[in-house]
């Protein structure tokens, strides 16, 4: 009992409805501090809804319980999930502010932070270290950058907002294999610095190689879970998600 770790994020019986349609049928999972965990699943399985629920962007069912570091997530409005609990979220499709420059996008991400300027400056240096391309393009409008650069900015922006845990929604989408590789290397680096990562992905192969543990989500239910190696070797996962 004493050796057992306490999970950082606990999700119990998560239900999400869109009108009469049930997107999640009461799923439960947890993430330990410092882990990289992935939820894989097909389009429409409920991956995005899961992350949106943690960020408090959607209503959840009456039986749902979610805690983060012991705090009841349901007691926090969306902006305080970020600013007080420290959970950042890279949404599906990046969702940058295309009319703002790279620098302004990052600057806006500091809106609720109360750290002294030198701490924030150190974070800026860190993300520019991680993604040197962003430093070159700091005065460019985000909307005019390439897909890969935009994805970098989306991750950088999330990193500036909060860094206890990062929720990532399909960061590989639309990226060429080489860029994808670079992106995941940067994410590993971020994780090493102490940020827990919860990643949802359609690209199961990539995600399972990146994460330590995984869950498989099918039409609103978690059907499998385990260490990534086990899932990679699982015949059902192989057949359904890894192309046989």
């Amino acid at each position, binding site marked *: 009992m004493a050796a057992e770790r306490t999970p950082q994020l606990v999700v119990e019986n998560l239900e999400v409805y869109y009108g009469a349609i049930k997107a999640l049928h009461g799923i439960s999972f947890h993430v330990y501090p410092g882990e990289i965990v992935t939820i894989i699943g097909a389009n429409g399985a409920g991956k995005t809804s899961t992350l*949106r629920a943690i*960020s408090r*962007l959607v209503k959840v069912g009456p039986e749902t319980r979610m805690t983060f570091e012991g705090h009841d997530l349901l007691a926090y*409005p*969306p*902006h*305080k999930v*970020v*600013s007080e609990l420290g959970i*950042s*979220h890279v*949404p599906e499709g990046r*969702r*940058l*502010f*295309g*009319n*703002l420059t790279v620098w*302004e*996008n990052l*600057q*806006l*991400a*500091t*809106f*609720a*932070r109360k750290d002294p300027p030198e701490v924030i400056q150190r974070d800026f240096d860190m993300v520019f270290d991680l993604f040197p391309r962003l430093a070159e393009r700091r005065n460019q409008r985000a909307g005019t950058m390439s897909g890969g650069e935009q994805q970098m900015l989306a991750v950088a*922006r*999330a990193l500036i*907002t*909060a860094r206890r845990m990062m929720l990532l929604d399909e960061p590989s989408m639309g990226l060429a294999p080489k860029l994808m590789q670079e992106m995941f290397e940067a994410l590993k680096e971020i994780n090493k610095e102490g940020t827990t990562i919860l990643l949802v992905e359609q690209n199961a192969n990539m995600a399972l190689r990146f994460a330590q543990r995984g869950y498989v989500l099918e039409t609103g239910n978690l059907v499998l879970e385990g260490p990534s190696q086990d899932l990679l070797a699982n015949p059902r996962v192989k057949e359904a998600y890894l192309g046989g």
Partner: protein
Amino acid sequence: MSQVAQQLFNALQWGSFYALIALGYSMVYSILMLFNFAHGDVFMVATYIGYFVATLLLGLALSGSLPLSGVAVFVLTLLLTMFLASFIGIAVERVAYRPLRDAPRASAAITGLMVGIFLETLVLYLLGASRRNFPTLIEVNTFELGPVQVTNLKVLTIVLAVVLMVLLHLFIRKTKVGMAMRAMSYDYAVIPLMGVPLDLIIAFTFALGSALAGAAGVLFGMAYPVLDPYMGVLIGWKAFVAAILGGRGSILGAVAGGFLLGFIEILVAAVLTSTMRDLVAYSIVLLILTFRPYGLFGEEHSVRLRL
């Protein structure tokens, strides 16, 4: 030639009123895609606030209780009115629009019209139908500026309007709240993920727009000192037209639209008769919109993205 210059100068004064009010429409539209049809009546209430503040301060100054010069009374009136007017905007948003944030836009727009009628009737009920006279804060002097006859009040109006617009521009460009407002006009749904409280930015936008309407109210009251509860209706609609003419949601557009509308109106009145002013002026506006449906600086808005 001097006739034209004279009219251009007058047009700048009216353009200032329209632009200051139009900015309130445009800022709210750009972040919420909502036409705040109560804004003309917010201007009316703000003018009444200015009337009460000015009367009070002037009374204190004349009785000697407060050692204030005329200019100090004006400055204090302007600042206090802007400050108090901002709460009218915040209240309208809080009471009328926030509960409808996820409702169809038409419901919110109609609510704005109802809030407008509510404010008109409330002022009518509280203050009665008799018209109020805005006190004289600054002695009006006329002087020659080249071929043009100008008054110090008109110059003051134009200069102050321009100063406020520059300040607004700097605010929107340089501050984090301003950045949040611009970001929100692009993608409303992601704002909370930046740790930014949505309600705060929305309230701030309404406050800013109403404060500008407050400034317009004081300047308007000084130039045209007769106040009545329906004074905000026509000027509100015209400022709304100016905002559309400039381009929905565009700050630069609101300013350009305001001044352009001022010019069109004054020039039509100068060339033709003043009874034909609105008839011809708004025909011209219709014609402009026929060729530029999104206004001078407007872009075809993308469909609001939802997360």
